């Protein structure tokens, strides 16, 4: 799926934002549009990898390697808890640090 085709399509269909990283396209929308938009994308481009509701922070905080290491440990422990459905956070981390820690 090319970013350009996807961008045009999702903008026309109520998306708010589109980000592309090494592996994936990430489409953001209002929570009430999620199911509708997901179905439209599937019809047009094929199966999506995931569709879910998240909390997106309005401001992010850049973290250094030390903080990122501690924070990732916390996020992983939370994710691993049996009752947890989702974890959101407001950090931003550079590619370099991310690749050092994962």
């Amino acid at each position, binding site marked *: *799926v090319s970013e350009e085709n996807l961008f045009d399509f999702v903008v026309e269909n109520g998306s*708010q934002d589109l980000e*592309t*990283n090494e*592996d*994936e*396209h*990430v*489409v*953001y*929308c*209002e*929570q009430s*549009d999620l*199911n509708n*938009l*997901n179905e439209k*994308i*599937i019809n047009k481009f094929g*199966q*999506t*990898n*995931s*569709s879910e*509701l*998240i*909390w*997106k*922070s*309005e*401001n*992010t*905080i850049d*973290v250094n390697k030390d*903080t990122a290491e*501690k*924070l*990732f*440990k*916390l*996020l*992983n*422990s*939370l*994710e*691993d*808890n*049996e*009752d*947890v*459905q*989702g*974890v*959101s*956070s*407001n*950090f931003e*981390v550079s590619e370099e640090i*991310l690749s050092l820690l*994962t």
Partner: protein
Amino acid sequence: MAGHSKFKNIMHRKGAQDKKRAKIFSRLGREISVAVKTGGGDPESNIRLRSAVSAAKALNMPKDNIERAIKKGEGNDPDSNYEEVRYEGYGPEGIAVIVEAMTNNKNRTAAEIRSIFSKSGGNLGESGSVSFGFKRLGIITLSKN
């Protein structure tokens, strides 16, 4: 958040795959059960259920598991009587963290979450103390190729 979704992807890819998979299925199953409990077992009239089933199918959750989760939502077993709870807290350097849980025992879950935060040098805050800086959004991911 850009960093966060990337982080999640990488962790899921590199983590113990089978364990993560089992965990993801149980998570999706709970979402389906709660969707049924709150809006009924008919996906035509229950958008949340439709959305949950579609998310489960996207991750290749077996059909049997999906049907079992729907039955659970229709039944009255107290063990599968899940409630949605949100915890808000801070990690190292005051990084905000929102945790969404579904639990059949709020006391147990709250104690566990609190202990995870305090072990990492963070702490749980009052409800609403963190989420005011966040927006609830839908997110859809698809592969580039």
